[in-house]
């Protein structure tokens, strides 16, 4: 019956569950450290984290970041430090989402959200300025008309999601080494890498579900 086995296989497959998901209506959960559209964070007191040091622009392999720093006005400081970034632009026609800017940032100011579905129809829309990148007064990323934000896309945008997260080193396991953020507070550390580690897709912590 060797010739007919193939027919049985195809017939059996008809009653198996589908592997495809109807994409724009339903989306797969994204990885926790997904590299998407950038976000400029603020401290819990509303101060901007960016100090205009231009390290992100320096490390960027695609040269898509343009930063200008300026001295903080003494009577109305923008950031807690001496200086702040008064121009901050990212050209998304060049950005490769390597996350090296996030690595380089000394104040955890620039991080990446999980949003990757932002298809603009005008080249000028590709250049995100500080207005678009900076989180709003609730600490949520600004939603532009062409961006498709879904619940959870703005989670873990702090230094939590740095590629060299301390979970790799046993000594740093469970230790919080990042600052708090406007609207989200201090993000909880993730679990250590034990042998029976839970599936990261299934451990989407329900924190900040009101966002998005």
């Amino acid at each position: 019956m060797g010739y007919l086995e193939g027919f049985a296989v195809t017939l059996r497959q008809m009653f198996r569950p589908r592997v495809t998901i109807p994409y724009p209506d339903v989306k797969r959960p994204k990885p926790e450290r997904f590299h998407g559209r950038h976000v400029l964070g603020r401290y819990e007191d509303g101060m901007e984290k960016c100090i205009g040091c231009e390290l992100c622009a320096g490390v960027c392999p695609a040269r898509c970041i343009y930063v200008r720093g300026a001295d903080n006005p003494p009577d109305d400081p923008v950031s807690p430090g001496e200086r702040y970034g008064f121009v901050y632009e990212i050209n998304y026609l060049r950005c490769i989402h390597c996350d090296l800017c996030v690595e380089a940032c000394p104040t955890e100011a620039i991080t990446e959200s999980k949003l990757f579905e932002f298809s603009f129809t005008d080249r000028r829309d590709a250049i995100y300025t500080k207005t678009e990148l900076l989180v709003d007064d609730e600490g949520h990323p600004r939603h532009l008309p062409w961006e498709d934000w879904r619940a959870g896309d703005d989670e873990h945008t702090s230094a939590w999601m740095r590629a060299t997260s301390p979970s790799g080193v046993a000594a740093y396991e469970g230790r919080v080494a990042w600052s708090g953020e406007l609207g989200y507070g201090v993000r909880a550390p993730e679990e250590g890498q034990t042998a029976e580690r839970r599936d990261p897709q299934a451990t989407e912590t329900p924190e900040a579900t009101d966002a998005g």
Partner: protein
Amino acid sequence: MDPLFSNGVGLAVVLIVVLKVLVTFVFLLVSVLLMIWFERKIISDMQNRIGPNRAGPWGLLQSLADGIKIFFKEDLLPEQADAAVFRLAPYVSTVTAFAAFAVIPVGGSLSIAGHDTFLQLADPPVGVLFLLAMSSIAVYGVMLAGWSSGSKYPLLGSVRASAQMVSYEAAMGLSVVAVVLAAGTLSTHAIVLDQAGRGPGGILPNWNVITLGGVPFLIYLIAATAEINRPPFDLVEAEQELVGGFFTEYSSVRFALFYLAEFMNTITVSAVAVTLFFGGPSGPVYSVLPRTFWPILWFFLKLLVFLFCYVWLRASVPRFRYDQLMDLGWKRLIPAALFWLLLIAAIQIGRDQGWNPSLVLGVGVLAGLAVMGALALAVRTSRLRADDEAQSLEASR
């Protein structure tokens, strides 16, 4: 003959015929749209995918959307093409595909405005010959398309395609002749009537697939699949390897016409199989619904089973290599079809002459096996000789 023409041809009769033509044409167009959707849905089911689901409920309007899109595509005419033939070829393919369906009985008879008529577009006394003729003319569509494109690759593709279609036509014709022999008529309507009632044993239906021993049906199924270039015999199109073969240079509506013909052919071939081997519209009639309804229901149920099998075949079987295709056609199917045809003829003659049936069967099978053995020996000898020649050629270099 259709009782419609028995009392002379008046205006009413002409109008009824025109109505039947229109209904058939529209029905075929819609059924092709549904067939494409059906095929894509079943294939996606078998591959654990969802399939078309955006246009209309369950993606039903997907083929319509594709059709509208393709109508607005640019229509290219290659510089080297023979313009008139290039434009003609797709219509040859499509018209033959449509015309072949005309002789298929889809139901019993119907009375329109006092005129009785069969539920089939035409019932010529040579219905089966007409089917074979249409499938032969379809080869011209392929051949002319490739030749008139003014490019060598479509020409090569069309040579391959027409060689395949012509080869399998012989096996298909021989398997159909077995049916004609059993029914004693070429009219499709009469062949269907011949299969009505109870068959051998009183339980099984009197369908040709059973009374002829199944072999002609299997040969027909394989040969017809090759004839209409469906997988696993779709070397003509071979979408993963060639970009279409003979219709490479076609675009827009003319390209769509080839696809229309292809899917139309699938439906026609299935309908012919139902008519010749599965009793056409015959089946039990219940009093729940009008009497004319049941034969139509049975016909379409049988047709649907065949269409599903064609999709299933496509999802399950890998494509043939070209030499395997030719081997199967010429060295297996044609001798087998010829053998079975002669056996059935011998049994029929034996029945007429009052010979001992088991003796006729035994002698027939023995003679057949002897000829098959001789043929196999001849094929083997010629292959060995070809190998020897190839080796001596290799050695002399």
